[in-house]
């Protein structure tokens, strides 16, 4: 696919070099300041493990929710023309540009005790703020757009001849979606899922605003990092590195495997 390797123009190289340094330097700062001697103690602290576990549970739950509801939404956006489609698409991408704290306030006003759905939720005994479910919801709000956009782009780029062939062979709509569209969509679904998961893992603002902060319930790793930064900056650096390592392992590993990069 790459063909002949050519040396890029000097100006491009300079730009790329600056961009690479920009990503590398903060990482180098973390690595150089990390208190490696105290690493085992910091990482084995009960609160650290609790936060790591909660982060993994919440980010994967948010990704699962995003796939379950985001894929149908992407499908509708990509395949059906209806009035207000562009508005809906803009609405979906809104959380990507919204400051997450604002997203958290908006969630309170929708799902909080005094929120639009508050009385309904209370009637069925659901209380979202200050619960792990609330943290998952906050992460889903900011992360799902990444999945929807990627999957929608994938659907648009799909070669429709396979689906037409299946249709002429008598496949029903659900069968077609499940056995033809979905497998063809796998690469973009996966890329979208990984982006969504990574965003959910790093979520901070919406979570602390909507779900609050309590160890084991809503204190995810980014929240723990923020709080440690105030009292034990060295431990915060160590936790940040854990978050980085987990994300990097998943991103590199999956990218290689699925996108053949």
């Amino acid at each position, binding site marked *: 696919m790459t063909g002949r390797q050519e040396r890029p123009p000097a100006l491009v190289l300079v730009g790329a070099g600056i961009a690479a340094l920009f990503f590398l330097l903060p990482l180098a700062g973390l690595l150089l300041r990390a208190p490696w001697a105290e690493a085992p103690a910091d990482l084995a602290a009960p609160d650290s493990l609790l936060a790591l576990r909660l982060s993994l549970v919440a980010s994967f739950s948010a990704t699962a929710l995003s796939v379950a509801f985001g894929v149908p939404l992407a499908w509708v956006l990509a395949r059906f023309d209806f009035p207000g489609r562009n508005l809906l698409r803009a609405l979906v991408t809104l959380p990507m540009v919204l400051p997450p704290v604002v997203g958290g306030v908006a969630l309170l006003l929708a799902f*909080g005790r005094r929120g639009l759905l508050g009385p309904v939720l209370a009637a069925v005994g659901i209380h979202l703020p*200050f619960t792990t479910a609330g943290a998952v919801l906050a992460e889903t709000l900011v992360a799902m757009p990444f999945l929807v956009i990627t999957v929608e782009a994938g659907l648009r780029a799909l070669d429709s001849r396979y689906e037409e062939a299946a249709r002429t062979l008598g496949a029903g709509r659900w069968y077609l979606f499940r056995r033809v569209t979905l497998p063809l969509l796998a690469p973009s679904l996966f890329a979208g899922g990984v982006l969504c998961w990574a965003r959910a893992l790093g979520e901070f603002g919406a979570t602390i605003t909507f779900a609050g902060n309590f160890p084991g*319930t809503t204190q995810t790793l980014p929240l723990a990092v923020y709080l440690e930064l105030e009292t034990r900056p060295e431990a915060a650096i160590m936790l940040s590195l854990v978050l980085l390592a987990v994300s990097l392992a998943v991103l590199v590993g999956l990218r290689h495997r699925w996108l053949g990069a």
Partner: protein
Amino acid sequence: MGLLSLLLAACGSAPTPAAAPDPVRGSLTVFAAASLTEAFNRIGAEFTGLHPGASVQFNFAGSPTLVTQITEGAQADVFASADQPNMDRVTGAGLSTGPPVVFARNRLEIVVEKGNPRHITSLADLARPGLLVVLAGPTVPAGKYAGQALQSAGVRVTPVSEETDVKSVVTKVALGEADAGIVYVTDVRAAGSTVEGITIPDQHNVIASYPAVALKGAASPVAAKAFIDFLLGPGRSILTSFGFAAP
């Protein structure tokens, strides 16, 4: 606000030929505990009214957040903390000029929703099952003081959230998400009619002391010193009007 008072002052005091130029000038950056927000905004306006050549920028956050920002090299001229330990971390790092001075004191109060729908009258009520209590985190002065007050009253409370600053506790109660919290008297007063305060009796209450210090490397050391002098002088009545007690 600063610009406005500067303009007003410029209009009002045009013919003052004999006065020496005010040495208090330049841009002043004040890092202040979140609980000082309302009072300091007023003090900033009065200060720049007195010194038209100066402007004041505030950075309000939980005291530990401010300490981290300062020790990591944030450009600040004055630090006003809500407790001594956080101030000690700054002076201990050799970042202050001279010893800090206590300029105000504060007391704790239970904050509940307007009308007190859960009928909370004492610290002991906070342990009631099913009650959603929010506290500031144990590293935040307000959270530490709340812990001391609860301990002194012999009450065990498991909060649903440990907020990163005291204002977030008030917000959670004002929005109706939490039933009660423990904050400063001044926070309840500043929140206005959305919340109510329940007095904590003296024997369990904790008196918070607010120390301030001018920081090394201040962009305008004269203005920094003038601001602290202002806190101890004309600023005191402003602080009192916001519910703070004199040191």
